């Protein structure tokens, strides 16, 4: 775009107003996170009194001390790692070969197989039948159930398939002439070529696994298996109603608010760590998978 100096007066006003508006929107996005972070480092008393606005007041680590001494925090944090890593690996084990096979023009019934995938994106049996099915399969209250039960997802499958379809078929043919079988073609040629698409899908899986709470809440009864998000909900929703907990707070330097805020911070940090990677790939990924020519 042209240099600002070349702009007319009206254009300059327009550009500046626009920048201010975007700035406001950006700050309003960022502010709640800052607010929560400040809250988590403030004393319970100041937090309860509603004195925390921007920066921590009476800075203290008490809320974190409380959280980090909770056994359930560590258990659920560990579980989230198990679900995230296990679930992502499981997803890729299904998605990569599946998407590759769907992208091959030579398979019989290709339209049918693709329709089988697409239909699941249009029609969903719903919560109850899915839940009953998981129960019938004996996958309630199990790590494996959570990991396998959400392994395949139509959007990710089609995103990867579209990428594989975009690779010129001469790569497959060249590798075949060189003596590679289908698995070797996939592993030695197509997977390296599809690295950005695979990274995108892996990041989508990681984020949705890390954040997933609903099905974990429904399918897991055993407290020792719940992920962080379920524990977090538990804390936020139930602590404020928990008379016993509230009673212990009278003189404590932490409060429901600061404790909740501290868990939120602990749970966001891993997302923030991988966020730069996510950002690198997801724009491409959205456009790759959303609309197919």
């Amino acid at each position, binding site marked *: 775009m042209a240099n600002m100096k070349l702009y007319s007066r009206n254009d300059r006003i327009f550009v500046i107003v626009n920048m201010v508006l975007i700035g406001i929107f950006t700050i309003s996005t960022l502010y709640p996170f800052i607010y929560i972070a400040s809250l988590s480092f403030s004393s319970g008393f100041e937090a309860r009194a509603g004195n925390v606005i921007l920066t921590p007041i009476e800075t203290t680590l008490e809320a974190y001390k409380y959280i980090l001494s909770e056994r359930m925090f560590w258990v659920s944090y560990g579980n989230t790692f198990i679900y995230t890593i296990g679930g992502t690996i499981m997803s890729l084990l299904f998605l990569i070969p599946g998407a590759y096979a769907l992208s091959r023009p030579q398979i019989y019934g290709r339209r049918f197989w693709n329709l089988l995938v697409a239909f699941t994106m249009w029609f969903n049996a719903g919560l109850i039948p899915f839940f009953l099915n998981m129960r019938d399969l004996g996958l309630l209250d199990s790590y494996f159930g959570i990991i396998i039960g959400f392994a395949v997802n139509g959007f990710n499958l089609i995103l990867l398939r579209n990428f594989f379809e975009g690779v010129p078929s*001469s790569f497959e043919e060249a590798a075949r002439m060189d003596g590679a079988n289908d698995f070797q073609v996939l592993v030695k040629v197509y997977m390296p070529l599809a690295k950005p698409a695979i990274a995108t899908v892996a990041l989508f899986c990681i984020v949705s696994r890390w954040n997933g709470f609903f099905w974990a809440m429904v399918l897991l009864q055993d407290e020792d298996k719940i992920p962080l998000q379920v524990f977090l909900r538990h804390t936020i929703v139930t602590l404020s109603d928990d008379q016993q907990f509230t009673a212990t707070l009278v003189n404590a330097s932490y409060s429901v608010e600061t404790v909740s805020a501290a868990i939120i911070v602990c749970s966001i940090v891993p997302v923030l760590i991988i966020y730069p990677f996510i950002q690198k790939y997801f724009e491409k990924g959205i456009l790759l998978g959303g609309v197919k020519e």
Partner: protein
Amino acid sequence: MSGVKLESIVKAYGAVQVVHGIDLEVKEKEFVVLVGPSGCGKSTTLRMVAGLEEISDGTLTIDGKVVNRIAPKDRDVAMVFQNYALYPHLDVAENIAFGLRIRKESKENIEKAIKDVAGILGLENYLERRPADLSGGQRQRVAMGRAIVRRPKVFLFDEPLSNLDAKLRTQMRAEIKRLHQRLGVTSIYVTHDQVEAMTLADRIVVMNDGRIEQVGSPMELFLNPVNAFVAGFLGAPPMNQIQAVISGGDAAPIAEFAGQQFTLPPLPGLQNAVGRKVIVGIRPEYATPQTKAVEGSVSCTLELVETLGSEALLHTTIGGEPFVIRTETLGNMDQLNAVNGFTADPALVKVFDAETGVALSGQLRVA
């Protein structure tokens, strides 16, 4: 005898047949070029030889063995692709070695093979580069390296030069020819470019519409095309083809077009054939420009002179139909601009039946 033999090879997609029973024998060490317009089935034929397309019908023999149902990797053939299909995540050395690694060759053998191939193709200094960092010509060389490293019985080339600019194409063409002379491997080469076909081939196979029109050495095809299609396809600029009617002549038949008469060679079928419709084919090189009417000359209207340096193309029309003459300039532009007719040696003129396009027999000597 590591030749390739195609017997009544057919390719059909469902009920649609695209290759209609091809018979061709490629002899050991021979360089055969399949040439034809796009969609003529030449690439499909090549891909059937490679094993990348199923053969619908017929028998394909490589080195005396029927390979119809044998996977590409077990046919002992190698292919150079139009877009090279170099693996972007591997460096040059690993691209060349890919096939050997898949086949679990020993490390020492692979090392040695890479070295040999790099030496042959002048790639020694590029072995650690990725394809993205190579020029078009270098990529082309790597693609060939990947093919020759396995020492296959047959090389297949699928329009390997069409992604290069004109200058590089000429250079690589010569290189392919040299490579073939050096390695002497049976080669089948597909192109739509008749110049590549003429320069590279031991024998050319002209294809059209899923069928072979003619097979022969470049000069054979150039001088004695069996029909108007082959005549029009080979040679640049292509042969002039004039619709004409036989109007008499017992000893030497006369053709009439645009109100002019032209003496044809005494070919069978032209005697006492007044009224027969024919196509008179005159190569641009074999028409001698004239600036005034002479014995046997045909008059034409000069529209444009394209000077190519030592040569010039005279774009003329005869009765509205285009006619191109190729001649030497010798720096005499005034004379070129004054051209209003041409003569042609009847011995160098071809005549085709207007209905079928088939050449009336009469062989020209192959120079």
